[in-house]
């Protein structure tokens, strides 16, 4: 049971952050299908920092530098989307897909080159080990093993919710996703707002990436990317109707089902049912499809998302 809670917390933290990132981007009018790729970049940068830091570095240094590296890498990679989709009016779905491919390929190339040069040509793998880094993030509360990552995620969730509902800036950002022409007419810089939205998604997505690979594991194979977590977050975002508080609870729902697949053997009641673990893997997707079917009649995505803003358009 403890294990179930631990996994749920980790998955929920990842999904919340990444889905919030997607939300900010889409609310500003840019569909971000490249969340998966952003996560990979964030994860790679964070893991690199953990590997490169000397073993005697203090916990606080490791934690702060890792998080900063992941967030910065996420934001830099999100610029690929921002430049192409905002300035050059590129097809947003295509660019997102391209970023995902780009991320996995370049992460593999970079990590392999890094390993090769570090080991004098004996290690060609795309694997990074960061046991010290992983341990630095752990804190124990009674029997429960919590990671600093989860606290960071919780704080960011609160900040995002307040930011989203209570600030003028977020209101303007949301206007750009609904009716950019109207927003422009009252003096809001649509391009700047969309940049802000995409960069926020890069920031949150990068952090989500490092949490995904480092909260429960101490090694990661970068040739797998992040195995679809970014897409799952997109589903959470839609399920959460582009609203932070609903995203939070739908992320928890997804996370429970996701962790069930990891720990179903450990829970007597479920172990007795003898359902193969893979079935549990399907659960979050099946459940969300059904729930989406029931709720989508009234669902409304930001109205102007996916349409490049053209100042001259009628």
């Amino acid at each position, binding site marked *: 049971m403890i294990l179930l809670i631990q996994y749920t917390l980790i998955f929920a933290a990842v999904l919340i952050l990444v889905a919030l990132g997607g939300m900010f981007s889409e609310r500003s009018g840019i*569909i971000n*299908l490249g969340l998966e790729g952003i996560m990979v970049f964030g994860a790679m940068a964070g893991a690199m920092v953990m590997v490169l830091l000397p073993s005697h570095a203090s916990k606080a240094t490791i934690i702060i530098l890792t998080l900063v590296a992941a967030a910065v890498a996420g934001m830099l990679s999100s610029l*690929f989307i921002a430049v*192409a*989709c905002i300035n*050059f*009016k*590129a*097809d*947003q*779905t*295509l*660019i997102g*897909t*391209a*970023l*995902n*491919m*780009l991320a*996995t*390929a*370049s992460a*593999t*190339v970079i990590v*392999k*080159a890094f390993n*090769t040069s570090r080991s004098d*040509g004996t290690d*060609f793998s795309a694997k990074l080990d960061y046991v010290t880094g992983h341990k630095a993030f752990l804190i124990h509360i009674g029997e429960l093993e919590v990671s600093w990552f989860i606290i960071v995620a919780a704080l960011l969730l609160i900040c995002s919710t307040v930011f989203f509902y209570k600030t003028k800036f977020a209101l303007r950002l949301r206007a750009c996703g609904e009716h950019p022409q109207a927003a422009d007419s009252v003096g809001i810089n649509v391009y700047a707002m969309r940049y802000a939205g995409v960069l926020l998604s890069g920031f949150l997505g990068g952090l989500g990436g490092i949490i995904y690979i480092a909260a429960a594991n101490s090694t990661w194979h970068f*040739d*797998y*990317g992040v*195995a*679809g977590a970014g*897409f*799952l977050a*997109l*589903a959470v975002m*839609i399920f959460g109707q582009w609203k932070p508080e609903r995203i939070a609870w739908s992320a928890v729902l997804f996370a429970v089902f996701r962790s069930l697949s990891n720990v179903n053997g450990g829970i007597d009641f479920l172990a007795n049912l003898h359902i*193969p673990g*893979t*079935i549990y*893997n*399907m659960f979050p*997707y*099946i459940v*969300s*499809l059904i729930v*989406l*079917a*029931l709720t*989508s*009649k009234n*669902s409304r*995505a930001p109205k102007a*998302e*996916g*349409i*490049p803003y053209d100042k001259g358009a009628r």
Partner: protein
Amino acid sequence: MEKKPSFFRRPGVQTVLASIICAILGILVGFLILLAMNPSHAVEGMTAILRNFLKYDQSSTTLMYYFGSTLVKAVPLILCSEAILFAYKAGLFNIGVAGQYTVGIMASLYTSIALGWSWWLCILAAIAAGALWGFISGFFKAVFNVNEVIAGIMMNWIGLYLTNIVLGSKKVMDQSTSKTYNILSKNPDALLPSFLANVFGHNQYMTIALPVTVIVAIILLVVLNKTTFGYELRATGHNKEAARYAGMNATRNVILTLVISGGIAGFAASMFYLTGIEQYTLASSVPGMGFNGIAVAFLGGLHPIGAIVAGLFIEYLTMGGQYLDTNYFNPQVADLMVAIIIYLCGFVLFFKHLMNKGKAKALTNVNAETEENTTTDEKDKEV
């Protein structure tokens, strides 16, 4: 007013040119990456990628053999991109092609290895599986207004896990190697009939998949451009509301489009796995074929024939990675180059704009209209 547009101002020519620019720029950036990784061997590395299987030029048999392998591996990529562009023409972004391809693998391998069906029945099973997956996405889209991208992503993962369960069973998978059994040893009847194998250096994987792919592309071209159904699809893609107002059945068209698209994706899987060239291993993420298909569809200018050329080019580059000297580079550099080319495809609109720059004032109305038609494909899309 009736002035004929000059060669370089024709939309079709511009699309081709823009794609070529993408490819060249991508290769240049790839070269820069090679330079950054290992300056002294960069030229050698780039030559290896671009020269590819042509390095076997001493023996024409070997050369043709490897050429054949490239063709065989390009087939599923091309078919997946056909599936995507077909749905895209109707304004649907079928990201579910990846999952439809995966269940296609499941159906074709299960029916061929466990059930011992002959090849054409296996193909039908794969088409049916892909079409069913497409139908579910389409049904959720048309009836419940679930965004097809999200429904597609969900169905991708459900399909992947289902495939892992079905193909992981003892009947289909050799538990000691964790690969599915070789079709050749279990049920040779399920292998596709061979085609021109002798010309391609006795490559036993050369099958009817190749000519069939071309035929599928031509059929799609005809359906999209010469039939009422194709016209309705494109009309729905341009303006959904207008199409509905004109009396077209949107619900039916959405479902039918995704069923056909899914069917093609399932077909793609059977055209690859029933050659016996590769065995399925349990995967932890959805096979990338469907996603790469998106890329190929765009690089090919969203044209059924363009997709064939683009698919061959992308597969050629990907294979090129294997010819790199692993002491200096790793093969994924080629994947990186492909990804960059795809990313640059997003700038096609911008390249076209550049090509038209300066002459814009001289545009006659006729020209303006034709240009409008070609660019709306990219612009008038909502997800």
